[in-house]
């Protein structure tokens, strides 16, 4: 399983546009990390989209995050949520990706 994190927008949007996405391959992770990641992905997927629409709404400079989960080389799931509309499941996965 390959997980990619892309960040968009925010106060430093112009810089975010240039930064490469973060990629993690569970095959390269220790077994317990890989299992933890798989569990978080499953939770984020089952949590579904956050309550709000994907347009910026009234928030300004908020960032949005696109997490792509690929299995067997095929893109299977794409999750996008933002700073002001984020499910707890997505937030947990995001934090894990940011700190690993």
């Amino acid at each position, binding site marked *: 399983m390959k997980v990619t994190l*892309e*960040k*968009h*927008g*925010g*106060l*430093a*949007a*112009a*810089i975010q*546009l*240039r*930064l490469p996405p973060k990629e993690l391959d569970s095959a390269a992770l220790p077994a317990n990390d890989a299992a933890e990641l798989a569990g978080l992905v499953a939770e984020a997927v089952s949590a579904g989209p956050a309550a709000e629409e*994907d347009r*910026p*709404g*009234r*928030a*300004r*400079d*908020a*960032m*949005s995050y*696109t997490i792509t989960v690929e299995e067997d080389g095929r893109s299977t799931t794409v999750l*996008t949520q*933002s*700073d*002001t509309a*984020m499910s707890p499941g997505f*937030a947990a996965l995001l*934090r894990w990706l*940011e*700190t690993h």
Partner: protein
Amino acid sequence: MSRTRRVNCIIPPHLLDKLLDSEHTGVRKAALDTMLTTARLRGERGLRASFVGAASAGNGRRTVFDCQQGRLLPTATLAQSEDGAASTDESVRRAFDGLGTTRDFYRTVLQRNSVDDRGMRLDGYVHFDVKFNNAFWDGRQMVFGDGDGTLFTDFTRSLDVIAHELTHAVTEFTAGLAYHGQSGALNESMSDVFGSVVKQWSLNQSAEVADWLIGAEVFTPEIDADALRSMKAPGHAYDNELFGKDPQPDHMSHFAHLPDNERGDFGGVHINSGIPNKAFYLTATNIGGSSWGAPALIWYESLKASSIDTQFQGFADTTHQKAEELYGAGSNEQLAVLAAWQEVGIQVSGVPAGVARDLGRAGRNGAPGRTAGQDTGGAARDDGLTALNRQIDALASQVASLSKAMTAMQREHVTRG
């Protein structure tokens, strides 16, 4: 029913007390209901009065909360308020002070009572999430990240960033510029303009001395970048291997056409803001002196006169019109505005290009270094008139030489004939 209510209203309290002692259950119940209704109404009136009081007497009271690295604002803890002692946490203190400086700028310079002009409370949240590389306005409050420590550091470090975010609220309560395309770039530019002006005001810096940078303090020392953006030189805030060259344009000919979605920054709202940013910088330096004088006032009045779908052209026209209303037709301030927009490739509507070029030149050369203010209108108007007169003189001499040539040609024709 209405009769019952009328009766209820006129029953004196002592009689109600007596009725409560009545042996009849129905009478007791009616008396009790009346008392409860009256108490509730009185309570509501009191409640409503206290709401009104809170809005008008709030005067932008500040509260800063500590998210303690969490993402949920409701669970953040109170860190500093107007009534308590200053926090020992530097991020909390900086956020609190930055909210105060921005609020004081709007109050004393632009006579605006907090972001909504009705004394709205200002709430800030610091230490949001882990390694959070951002600061944002969520539609009701400000949120600051600590940065990842690699690229970015604490976002409370830049006063212009704090003023930038609060100005998003001001824009929301005034023009409500839609956050995509040109209106979105104008929305971003308003935040950069007042972000920088607040910083210049707090440092008492003239337009000539100011750095005109946005977020100069948010990078870690390892990162080779001056700031997130430069209003003086859009496109030149950074140029490094890590994230390349600053993509901001400083002229309409380099307007960035990006997709209107998250990936495209909603049509490059943080990118194309470079064009109106440069126009404000040029206006401020053309006029000279304090950016929080005439330049800020012209922009603020124009923001209030704009609407949800205002584009660059419409905003440029409005600033030209507001400069005229505030300082007079042909004033140095108006010429400064005209020249500024022209330099970024936007021609103010109704001013022929040739005239604009000459008048603009006069606006640029008009008394450099002079402090902006209403008292400069007379001298400035003279500058404009001088430029116009010069142009008329030039045209008149051209006409004279043309007619001379014509006469000569006619004579030649007659002689030959």
